[in-house]
């Protein structure tokens, strides 16, 4: 699965990057985020775009796994 790294980017960049990457890989995506705000925003965007999201903690970061 393709992965994008949004660590260090401030909002709305993580959501914008997710949107762009999903346009290229509509079947699914892994998104690496490093703060709660970005996690919440990306999760909400994925939900409204019809994806199911699995979140796992990776040290201080989070991996959001989006599937159709």
């Amino acid at each position, binding site marked *: 699965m393709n992965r994008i790294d949004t660590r260090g980017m401030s*909002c709305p*960049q993580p959501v914008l990057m997710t949107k762009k990457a999903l346009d290229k890989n509509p079947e699914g995506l892994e998104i690496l985020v490093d*703060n709660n705000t970005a996690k919440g925003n990306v999760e909400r965007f994925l939900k*409204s775009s019809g994806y199911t999201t699995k979140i796992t903690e990776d040290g201080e970061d989070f991996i959001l796994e989006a599937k159709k």
Partner: protein
Amino acid sequence: MKGKKGIILAGGAVGLISVILGYYGNPGNMGYCIACFLRDIAGALGLHRAGVVQYIRPEIIGLVLGAFLISLKNKEFESRGGSAPFMRFMLGMVVMIGALVFLGCPLRMVLRIGAGDLNAIVGLAGFLAGILVGVRFLNKGFNLKRNYKMPKIEGYIFPVVNVGWFILLITAPAFIFFSETGPGSQAAPILMSLAAGLIVGVLAQKTRLCMVGGSRDMMLFKDNYLLLGFISIIVVSFIGNISLGFFNLGFAGQPVAHTDGLWNFLGMAVVGWGSVLLGGCPLRQLILSGEGNTDSVVSVMGMIVGAAIAHNFGLASSPAGATLNGKVSVIIIFVFLAIISYFNSDDLAKTNI
């Protein structure tokens, strides 16, 4: 306090407390105004000498410390910085100048709308136009590059500075300026203002309330979460103003406002566009500053310097209207924003990557 209920409640609290602050002495339709209050602090510190707008506003201190304490408690405090600091400083500066041409930050614009000030509707049109332009650049890949983890102490400095401001307010040494007339002399009691800041600082940190984020996220993603907070402030302040008899529909005779429509529009267009590039309105920058984001601290410092320049150079409007210097500065700022927007958009300026 998760989800839409939370943001509606937070917006409602802002609207309600604003009206209360006005009732207990803050200037008209100025329960909260991040731009005006930072400008007052700049004046109190002697960075500008406009005698009618000098006061260390406890609301600002409360907002920063409220966000600081709640983010510590929820383990969301994190020292981060290093994302294009000088561009952020300059953007903070121009956002402040735009706000002082209009006479209010986006939060005060919303409060003015809730009090029936129709000039603020003109400002809102400009604000939305500015956001629209900013969003177009976001879609072309605009970004200010990533931030990095900083030493913990980096994030603690700004909250400590705010404690220092509070000590200066209480002890009132001779080198701090306090207005004796004008808006700077009108203020709710210190502890009430501080509490008002703390409460909204906590709520805004938890909900990420942002005046520019609402319209931006609607345009970008059709996401109405933040917009609900924006609307909630208008509705509750409208009800509050009606019940206390502060509501006054019209253009003329509004408190701390002018009727120069074109410059109300263009001033807020600067604020909308600049705030989208910064990633949040002045309120949001303050809240992020409390959470350890020193890029936002740099933006706030830019706003304080911008306020000093705006009054020293005669750029700020008065109830009589916009000044010639203010109009010229807005034109220059549009050129500046266009250059910054173009050269930071990955799809436009290929050399940026």
